[in-house]
């Protein structure tokens, strides 16, 4: 008789989900699924709203990554207005987006994942939290919180507030940068670099302990997708779309991100509200690909900033030119963060950054627009259609967590096959199954706009629905 293990909902990810693991009569894992169990109504809410309101509305999708939606949405409206923001306006958008990358990456690594890395996957669950990290390694906890606070301050200074900031508007940004704000952000750069470098040094010292996890946490061949600049380096704001295969060979290169529908399809499964995106030429479900910090490093030639490129070289020496294990998202996230801090400094030191030409204005010139940028968790696409009066008729969001959906499912299967033993639910298995999901740092607020409940409820079910075993914490 087959069995199903259900982990519902998953802890320490943003929003709601559950995991089911299907066992056969011998207790072997036959299948596993990562379910998103709440429906996101955002595409429906915005129908009939003036398109100029879209960035402000979309920023309210998520309290963790509002800037990402703000940026992608503003770019989609730019497309409808048929305008390009002035160069300084675009750079100020880049700046706030990089502040978002810093704070969100810091949340993922230091708050969500460092407890596993510091105490181990077999540690007492009551110890695997940020307070215990602060007791065991105060510097690590302080660095994580300090880095996040700095990223949030950049968002607040440029966007007016930390959560659901404004500042970014169709055509550019609302206000030019003031010299004192530039100087205030620049003053924090040295400490931010030191904080990330300490974390990287700590991670590199400890990473050898996790060889087994690196070999089983989503270690498979897949494609990767991200944005790159004209040199092929990491670009978090614009540039071209690049998709590479598991060997690093370009499947799509120098592509206009607005043409993403040519390459990316969306499939729906009955067991989840989260859509599964796939690389069209390979079809569904074979067209699996990954996005986010690991993908950004895998698709790019380099990051384009010196300290991050030094670390990228070591990263590739350790894990290969194209890192195949999702466990390495943690390492990649730190390098991504270091690059973001360096890029913030570079942008702020550009002589034109105080220019007052930051916004272009126009009316409705097209009935369709697409905006694409890199969110902390990966490539984010906003696609709108409007009527001649600029009222939204249709909207579709292709979010990073959707791009990674198939990869997350395959990763859960891989971990479950390696660690699930028998029909009893055991803590080390539970945490490893959850931990592999955390590698992707999925944001289910973006996926569903959930209202939170983060208890852990694990059920072992027979095929007829009888509960054979259940664990709650």
């Amino acid at each position, binding site marked *: 008789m087959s069995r199903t293990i259900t982990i519902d909902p998953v802890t320490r990810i943003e929003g709601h989900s559950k995991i089911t693991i299907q066992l056969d009569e011998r207790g072997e894992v036959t299948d596993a699924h990562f379910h998103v169990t709440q429906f996101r109504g955002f595409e429906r809410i915005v129908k009939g709203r003036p398109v100029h309101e879209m960035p402000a509305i979309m920023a309210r999708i998520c309290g963790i990554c509002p800037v990402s939606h703000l940026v992608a949405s503003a770019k989609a409206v730019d497309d409808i207005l048929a305008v390009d923001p002035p160069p300084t306006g675009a750079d100020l958008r880049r700046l706030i987006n990089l502040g978002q990358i810093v704070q969100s990456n810091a*949340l993922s690594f230091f708050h969500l994942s460092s407890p596993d890395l510091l105490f181990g996957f077999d540690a007492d669950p009551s110890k695997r939290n940020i*307070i215990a990290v602060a007791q065991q390694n105060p510097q690590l*906890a302080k660095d994580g919180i300090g880095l996040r606070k700095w990223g949030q301050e950049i968002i607040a200074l440029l966007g007016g507030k930390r959560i659901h900031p404004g500042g970014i508007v169709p055509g550019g940004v609302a206000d030019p940068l003031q010299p004192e704000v530039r100087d205030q952000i620049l003053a924090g750069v040295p400490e931010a670099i030191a904080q990330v470098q300490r974390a990287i040094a700590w991670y590199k010292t400890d990473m050898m302990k996790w060889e087994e996890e690196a070999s089983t946490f989503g270690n498979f061949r897949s494609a990767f997708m991200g944005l790159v600049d004209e040199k092929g380096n990491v670009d978090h704001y614009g540039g071209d779309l690049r998709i590479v295969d598991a060997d690093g060979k370009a499947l799509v290169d120098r592509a206009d991100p607005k043409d993403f529908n040519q390459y990316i399809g969306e499939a729906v499964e009955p067991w989840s509200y989260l859509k599964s995106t796939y690389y069209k030429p390979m079809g569904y479900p074979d067209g699996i690909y990954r996005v986010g910090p690991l993908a950004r490093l895998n698709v790019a030639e380099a990051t384009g900033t010196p300290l991050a490129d030094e670390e990228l070289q070591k990263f590739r020496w350790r894990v290969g030119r194209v890192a195949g294990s999702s466990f390495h998202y943690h390492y990649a996230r730190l390098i991504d963060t270091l690059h973001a801090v360096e890029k913030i400094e570079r942008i702020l030191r550009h002589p034109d950054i105080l220019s007052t030409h930051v916004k272009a204005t126009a009316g409705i010139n097209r009935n369709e627009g697409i905006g694409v940028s890199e969110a902390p968790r990966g490539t984010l696409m906003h696609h709108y259609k409007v009527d001649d009066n600029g009222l939204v008729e249709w909207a579709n969001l292709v979010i990073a967590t959707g791009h990674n959906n198939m990869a997350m499912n395959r990763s859960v299967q891989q971990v479950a096959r390696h660690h699930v033993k028998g029909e009893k639910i055991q803590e080390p298995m539970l945490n490893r199954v959850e931990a592999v999901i955390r590698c992707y740092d999925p944001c289910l607020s973006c996926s569903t706009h959930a209202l939170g409940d983060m208890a852990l409820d694990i059920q072992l079910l027979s095929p007829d629905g009888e509960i054979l075993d259940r664990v709650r914490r």
Partner: protein
Amino acid sequence: MLVLGFGNTLRRDDGVGVRAAELLATEPRLMRATVEVRAGFQLLPEMALDFADVTLVVLVDADLRALPGSIELRPISADAPDSDADARAEPGASSHHVGGGELVALAAELTGRRPEAVHVGIGVADTELGEGLSPAVEAALPRVVRVVSDLVEQHLADDD
């Protein structure tokens, strides 16, 4: 002192903390240099550092368990759960639902300073997608302003 109202204004009554913070920010009794009123989407880890800088933290939030429009005050400590999430999860189980107690504990671990903290929970009726508060919750807002203002003034008097 820090007064923080938080919640999701696109989930109707879940946004009552934010709405309360907007009113508290213009309340004459709280117009003092030592009182900061903020509205936010959710509690976040770095707020531990803000907690460490004040002697009183007041968290104004929706309470899914209480009667719509009712107001309940609970002291927050590192050992006493202050929200649904705290009551169910291990400390630090989620960044999305980091609790006030967790932030008090984190402030103490990182800085050695531990503020007095109070959770002001407002019972809600409707947390579906949409904007605006239900009538019972909207009607409770003047009482929320009064209760929070009393709390702050009492704390000031105790300090004197």
